[in-house]
């Protein structure tokens, strides 16, 4: 990670092969990589690499902000993580790479998709809550 910071701090780009499942279906471990750049001014919708207070490095999407602090959530997660300061953000994803194809995270097409995705996340959470509450018998089956 110091090398990553050094490369990005020099105005460079760093290719990272993310691990884990929290950014599915967009980023799959072993298949996809991301090109990271300096975060300049992180914004809602950006996928960023940040460091938690406990020292852990995480690659998740910014889903909101409250004052100076950002709210994060992996695409495959429903629980958000609040209170991430801009100083904790090390890099942001500029390009997504899959099978030699690339997606520019600044392109209008991608931003449009992100907007849709962020809206959908809330619906997805709603749907999940509905399913869980139904399972728990908190809602009627005929609802």
């Amino acid at each position: 990670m110091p090398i990553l910071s050094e490369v990005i701090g020099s105005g460079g780009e760093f290719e990272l092969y993310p691990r884990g499942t929290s950014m599915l279906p967009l980023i799959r471990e072993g298949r996809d990589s991301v090109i990271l750049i300096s975060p300049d001014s992180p914004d809602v919708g950006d996928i960023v690499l940040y460091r938690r207070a406990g020292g852990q490095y995480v690659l998740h999407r910014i889903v909101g902000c409250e004052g100076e602090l950002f709210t994060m959530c992996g695409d495959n997660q429903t629980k958000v993580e609040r209170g991430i300061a801009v100083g904790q953000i090390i890099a942001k994803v500029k390009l997504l790479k899959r099978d030699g194809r690339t997606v520019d995270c600044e392109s209008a097409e991608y931003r449009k998709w992100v907007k849709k995705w962020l809206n959908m996340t809330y619906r997805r959470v709603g749907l999940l809550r509905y399913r869980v509450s139904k399972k728990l018998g908190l809602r009627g089956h005929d609802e």
Partner: protein
Amino acid sequence: MKRKDGFIVRQIADQNVAVAVGEASRTFRGMIKLNDTGLMIWNLLEDDITENGIVAALTERYEVDDETARADVRRFIAVLAEAGIVE
């Protein structure tokens, strides 16, 4: 021949690796692992040097004959050339 600017060597878990920084990192992504000999050649390439010059430096420092050293140097340079690091 000479190594292009824009690379740094850092130690990761006792292993020397070269990575690109700044502008160079836009075209070269990844890391080059360097063993002791690799690091020596890498450092020699900071200034313009000939193949003969590198071979001479290696045979002087290590107990290796000219032919073996030359083969190693050529193989290493070929890797760097393919990555566009030497010109």
